[in-house]
């Protein structure tokens, strides 16, 4: 069984079918890209995986357990963490407090100081602002904080929804380097990105969604610009 195994997953919003019976597999230590035009169903899929919304039909298994009925915090405890689109940081809390909130599970709490050090190594800008309120950070720094908070739960499986959003090209390059490094150290990574070229370059496997269905999947090495465009837009 794959580390993450999704079978025949459908999600309705009222009458609108956002995901139409899709299958997705993510193997341990892979980097997998989920791509597709805006409103293709990517965010819905991430919400279903992380337990924020319950699928209408289908199953999701993670580390051999069925998780599609679980609450988000139970899924985090199994070692999955999501970096949400739009940062969603706690603006009234300081940088340090925001990070510590990420380590609330008993497992992560034991080593939180060590993890904190690692996060500051990854984002020195956060360390310089450790006692500032979330609201006083720049957009890019908030994005770093959101990633740092996800790492604080010590996940072995991490999902980045729009990792590079709002970050300067230099920071994006460094982030992708750290993603590679995390992956080499054993982390399984799911990337949801609009930067198609960059995310395909680092991915072992990719799924492209179109109108709630998977229009293309496979190793990006076998993709051509044409097949990707067709899978994106149906042209």
């Amino acid at each position: 069984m794959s580390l993450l195994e999704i079978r025949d997953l459908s999600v309705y919003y009222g009458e609108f079918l956002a995901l139409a019976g899709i299958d997705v597999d993510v193997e341990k230590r892979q980097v997998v890209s989920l791509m597709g035009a805006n409103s293709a169903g990517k965010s819905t899929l991430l919400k279903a995986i992380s337990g924020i919304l319950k699928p209408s039909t289908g199953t999701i298994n993670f580390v051999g357990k069925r998780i599609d009925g679980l609450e988000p915090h139970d899924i985090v405890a199994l070692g999955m963490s999501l970096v949400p689109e739009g940062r969603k940081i706690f603006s009234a809390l300081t940088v340090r407090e925001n990070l510590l909130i990420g380590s609330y599970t008993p497992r992560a709490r034991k080593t939180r100081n060590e993890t904190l050090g690692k996060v500051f190594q990854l984002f020195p800008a956060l360390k310089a602002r450790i006692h500032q309120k979330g609201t006083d950070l720049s957009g890019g720094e908030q994005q770093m904080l959101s990633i740092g908070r996800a790492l604080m739960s010590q996940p072995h499986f991490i999902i980045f929804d729009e990792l590079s959003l709002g970050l300067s090209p230099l920071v994006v390059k460094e982030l992708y380097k750290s993603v590679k490094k995390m992956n080499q150290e054993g982390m399984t990574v799911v990337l949801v990105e609009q930067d198609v070229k960059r995310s395909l370059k680092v991915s072992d496997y990719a799924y492209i969604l179109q109108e709630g269905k998977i229009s293309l999947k496979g190793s990006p090495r076998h993709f051509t610009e044409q097949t990707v465009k067709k899978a994106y837009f149906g042209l």
Partner: protein
Amino acid sequence: MSPILTINSLHKSFGKVAAVHDLSFEVEPREILGIIGPNGAGKTTTFNLITGEIKPDKGEVIFGGKDVTYDSTYRKCRMGIARTYQIPKPFVNMTVLENLLVGAIYGASEGYRQSREKCEEILEKTRLKTKRNAIAGSLPLLDRKRLELAKALATDPTVLLVDEVAGGLTESEVEEVLEIIHSVRKDGVSVLWVEHIIMAMQKGPDRLLVMNFGRNLFCGRPEEAFKSEEVQRIYLGAEED
């Protein structure tokens, strides 16, 4: 021609961090001025200082020849300074059209009938016409970004501040945003545009302001900015293999 907006030695600190430091630049009428710089360089803070959401410690904001540094945000909006936000902030329970009407009636202080006509034009321009009755909270990302621009345009700006409207969009969607921004300028609006998407900053602006540590590091033609070694070092990073 005299500039429509002049930023004069602006300064703002948060605690010990100087977010904007002795910053000066000018925006000409009908100019698109792009702003780039590392994260935390003070780009959004500069916008907040121009609109009055935060007040500077020192310096001036001159709009249309008048010192507006300490005018309130709503007053500046009525004078003709509008902005968009990185993360779209629509009234989620209202329709697209109602969102625009708020901008037109409150922001530009116009009557309903006049506003209604103008909003139809803006819906057309921002390609939201078929979505006019959709609830704003249900819109997908591209439409939320369009709405963010449309709301600001409904206030009848002379100067429009655009904060990362193209982030998270596909390449063809970014092209569409570029077209909208250019058509806005054609209507006589000056645009200040913060964006991290290099293609947009190469094609969109007439001039590019590069900020670093709250300062004006460079201001000039985009192609010169991107060629500069300093810009490559602090912003773009080394070429990848």
